[in-house]
């Protein structure tokens, strides 16, 4: 098989075109259209530039050659009626190269993707970040902040402060997507998913639901009339003033944990074994002895009093045995479910002491 001059001319033209699209994608003004609001967006954009550049270069070559072959090898009037093409069945050399080339490309892409993957996935929970809960409803979002009673309608985040966003849902699967963050996570009922990121650019950004959630799914986004949520990235001072105003405005909203001023229960002498038995009969329907993320109805409770990666309570403090006793005593009407109080659960003060001792023993 000999390749004629036309082939090489076509190759040269396509190479020029491919280089043009590669340059276009490397320097494309992505951030002019869509700003990068958080630290991780730049990494994802870098991957996108790589994918788009290599993908469109490949597309230019494939389609370019197809067009060239279709023109160059079309049946002409000079062809005899029984003219046949070049009778080649295969070429091991060629096949070897065009198997190896995609393989190498895929290996390269996999390496790049894995590196970026480890950069953005919340594999290790950061300990000093602002923990916010995002909650999906049909068809709006609410957010819960440490120290603010109840749920707020807007998501405000301070600049340059690392954020851990735990999301879940009240009803069906929603999703939390801020296009300018390039990050998205599904809000699955019964499951807590997590995003971690650091806001790097102030402004107001759209939040969009991408997981089909029913009648008004299309309305579940920023910019719709009914007071739908935006993401505001504020300067620390702005954030502080917003936070204070929310705290004040919601002061009278029911705060699930801070209701009881103090627990009247004597926690000394709690029996771990009895607490374990009580846990299995009364608690294990809703709580697993597992990390926080493993929700059944309520969160997993392993290490609730010890594990630093376990989220803070709503008031922003680490849980203490007294806090846990308070929750057991007064119940909890939280975003992800309702926990019955002592009377409804049918447990005595002594049981609470035992349970706290048991939970304290889970390290």
């Amino acid at each position, binding site marked *: 098989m000999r390749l004629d001059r036309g082939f090489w001319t076509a190759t040269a033209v396509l190479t020029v075109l491919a280089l043009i699209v590669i340059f276009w994608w490397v320097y494309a003004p992505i951030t002019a259209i869509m700003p990068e609001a958080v630290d991780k967006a730049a990494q994802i954009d870098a991957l996108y530039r790589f994918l788009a550049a290599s993908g469109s270069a490949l597309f230019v070559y494939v389609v370019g050659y197809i067009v060239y072959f279709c023109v160059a090898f079309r049946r002409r009037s000079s062809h005899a009626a029984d003219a046949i093409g070049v009778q080649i069945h295969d070429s091991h050399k060629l096949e070897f190269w065009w198997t190896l080339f995609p393989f190498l490309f895929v290996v390269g892409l996999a390496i790049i993707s894995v590196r970026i993957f480890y950069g953005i996935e919340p594999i290790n929970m950061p300990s000093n970040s602002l923990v916010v809960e995002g909650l999906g409803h049909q068809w709006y979002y609410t957010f819960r902040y440490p120290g603010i009673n109840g749920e707020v309608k807007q998501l405000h985040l301070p600049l340059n402060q690392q954020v851990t966003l735990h999301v879940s849902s009240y009803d069906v699967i929603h999703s939390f997507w801020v296009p300018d963050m390039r990050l998205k996570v599904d809000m699955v*009922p019964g499951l807590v998913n997590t995003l971690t990121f650091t806001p790097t650019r102030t402004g107001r950004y759209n939040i969009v639901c991408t997981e089909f959630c029913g009648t008004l799914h299309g309305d579940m986004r920023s910019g719709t009339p009914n007071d739908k949520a935006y993401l505001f990235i504020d300067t620390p001072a702005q954030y502080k003033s917003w936070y204070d105003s929310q705290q004040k405005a919601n002061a009278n909203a029911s705060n699930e944990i801070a209701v009881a001023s103090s627990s009247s229960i004597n926690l000394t002498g709690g029996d771990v074994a009895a607490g374990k038995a009580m846990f299995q009969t009364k608690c294990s329907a809703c709580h697993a002895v597992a990390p926080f993320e493993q929700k059944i109805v309520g969160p997993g409770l392993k290490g609730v009093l010890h594990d630093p990666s376990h989220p803070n309570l709503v008031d922003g403090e680490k849980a203490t045995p007294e806090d846990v006793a308070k929750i057991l005593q007064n119940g909890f009407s939280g975003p992800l479910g309702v926990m019955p109080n002592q009377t409804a659960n049918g447990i005595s003060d002594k049981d609470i002491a035992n349970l706290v001792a048991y939970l304290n023993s889970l390290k």
Partner: protein
Amino acid sequence: MAVAAVHSGGIADHIHPEPQGFIRKYVFSIDHKIIGIQYMITAGIFMLLAGALAEMIRAQLMRANGGFMTPDTFNTVFTMHGSTMVWLVIIPLLTGGFGNLVMPVQIGARDVAFPWLNMIAFWIFPVSGLMLYSSFLMGAPAAGWTEYPPMSLQGAPGTSMWCAAIFLVGVGSTMTGMNFLVTILKMRAPGMTFTRMPLFVWGQFVTAPLLMIATTALGAALAALFVQREFGVPFFDPTKGGSPLLWQHMFWFYSHPAVYIMILPAFGMISEIFPTFGRKPIFGYKMIAFSSCAIAILGFMVWAHHMFTSGMAPQLQLPFMVLTMLIAIPTGVKIFSWMATLWGGVLTFSTAMLYSVGFLALFTLGGITGVFLAAVPFDLHAHGTYFIVAHFHYVIAGGSLMGALAGLYFWFPKMTGRMLNETWGKWSFWLYFIGMNGTFLPMHWLGLWGMPRRIAVYDPQFQTWNQIESVFSLVMTAGIILTFVNVLVSMKRGKKSGHNPWDARTLEWQIPSPMPYYNFKHIPSVFATPYDFAEPLPYRGLEEELTDSPPPVPAAH
């Protein structure tokens, strides 16, 4: 007798008496060719319905605030559009339709292994289609063709009907898969070794186990959803200990292989069409066949790439990401092989060839964006947006459906003995090609800019592009309708085609058009691949097929 029968008394020579009477001949037929045409007609009708639904979607999206229909109607419309296109159009068309019509003849058999099973499998299909559409009477399903719980648990009663209908159509698919697999394994003509099979047969051979295994897994998922909805068994209900993610695992374990069910037969088709209209052997026969196998095997190991944002453990996402990327290798090999097949040919641009070349270009684009989506970090941005919509429409409307249209223009003479009108065909191609790109290309950037899928109303900043798409979707529909008109007119008035209008070399073209009931008077023997244009045909025993010699005697019973 001039040619000695190669088999003596075996199943290949066992000819059932030709059925008489309209019902036995054309309705409850056990003849694979009739069944294939029945599949195509039924799938064609459902395609018109699904197309009408698609135009309703585009009409709604003309304006950012919608207004053509209520959001709830819109939700049922896109759900039914997706369900219809996947289960009632593309899969039956490519496997039951073209597979039945051509595959048994291409391997030199008189019928499939289990003709009765074939008939039952076909009749399940329109019945389940009617069941699916009857769900409109009781409140149609409205959670997308993926029907994720808990959304689908909230759905109208029709959602349970949806489960039952899709389960049933899956039973039919499973039967077809078993039937084809046994047929290809056991019924090949003498000398038709695996390395001599036409590549369309390879496509069906690789698809059959996918149909058989993946569809059954879907059946389990659907049964679970059904009993959850009707009896409250909490498979997917998180408040009772179930898991919404379980559905996604079970569903995608089917639905990812399903996309290969939808594309592998089309790969086979264009592997037949390129050599025929290029007068040139397919380049890299073995690599094309083996890469199909590789795609099918890898296809079972990548389902969770549909769930990168759904809260699966990050450690689990990595293997799925890498395995998904690996599929690019066999797919790339195929695309390069087809390009090399075009090189140095004498290319005749009939409509079938145009559709095949269009397939190659558009499928390449869909494949490239597929690699994009395999990369988890990018998928975190693009998942659930119009980018996904663009990607899979390039693969399915640009790949599978274009392949099916190529196959229709290619094999129509074999079905009817008449040609389709080539001028109309070329018009239909260009309308379809331009309309398809105009409709789906802008969806790529719309998705990246922030437009989620499955929405009845959207951000007004996207309105201009959506209007452009809606207009182009009419062009695309015009192309499809032109093909339908072409088929209806040419069936009666088309030019007579003769037995082999394309001068093609696979076995089905060596017998009269339309194909006689018994396919072959004598079972031929095969001694090479059908792709050597410089050589005489690689078959023995076909001398009498086109003559007036008497047909074979049916077995007495």
